[in-house]
């Protein structure tokens, strides 16, 4: 009985060790859709023109350099961000649409982002974020 318990404990320890070999870290994927659309600053937004597939609930995957999926989920609504500081004295101004989504990814040399099965776009590490500018 004692021997079988020891065997079980060893198996559990091995499983825990194996699962812990690859640690993941929290970061945020920031997708900046550079569509320069006229919107009110701060409103929810989606990509426009050729980038309409960037929108709330759109499925996404983060790939590593080998093309393996290391995180996935769905985009939140984008937020309209002003493109320059000058006050044009109107509510609707040129903006881009930023999506920010927290992910947990294992350490890799490079990452890519796939949204709604569209072609992958590179993610660049910048100040702790993984950033994609669209179009890049």
């Amino acid at each position, binding site marked *: 009985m004692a021997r079988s318990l020891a065997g079980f404990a060893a198996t559990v320890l091995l499983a825990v060790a194996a699962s812990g070999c690859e640690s993941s870290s929290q970061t945020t994927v920031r997708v900046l859709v550079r569509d320069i659309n006229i919107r009110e600053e701060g409103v*929810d937004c989606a990509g426009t023109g050729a980038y309409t597939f960037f929108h709330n609930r759109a499925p996404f995957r983060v790939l590593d350099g080998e093309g393996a999926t290391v995180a996935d989920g769905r985009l939140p609504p984008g937020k309209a961000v002003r493109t320059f500081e000058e006050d044009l004295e109107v509510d609707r101004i040129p903006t881009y649409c930023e999506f920010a989504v927290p992910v947990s990814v294992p350490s890799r040399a490079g990452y890519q982002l796939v949204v709604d099965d569209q072609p992958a776009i590179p993610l660049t590490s910048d100040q702790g974020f993984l950033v994609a500018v669209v179009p890049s």
Partner: protein
Amino acid sequence: MRAVAALLAVVLCLAACDGAEPVRAGGAATLPGPVPSGLAARPAPPGTPGAPVFTGTLTDGTALAAADLWAGRPVVLLFFSSWCTTCAERQDALSELARAYRDRVVFVGVVTGDEPADLDAYLRAHKAEFPVVVDADGTVSRAYAVREPGAVAVVAKGGALLRGWPGGLDASTLDTRIRELLLA
């Protein structure tokens, strides 16, 4: 006892196997009735450009020709998607407004980039009882220069394109605009 069981089986089968397609929200059942007699539609200012003419299919596949609608009464076009959060915030009140104007001013939804099940759930959740065109490839949206949902356009009786609002409008403001622009 056996007869009761047999009757129960028949009833259950009829309930489960009648084969009827569920009624799609935004489909043919939401098309307007006849134009009310004495409808006082405001004439469009001279020189107002015509609205882009389009045909499309509703959520249940029913064909719709927009020009047939605006031949007899004003039309409000609502551009939205089920994933558009701003649209969802405004939709209940817009649905109520559409009901209030039903047959006098026809509201038509134009939807892009959506999944049928998500759209159906959205329309039911927000009690949207107006026809909804599925603009799968975005042709109608582009014709009206709509870059993202929501947006609103109003068309006078006869087909003149009076105004468009990128970003959309809340129901109260749209009601005011309808009275100013569309109804005498």
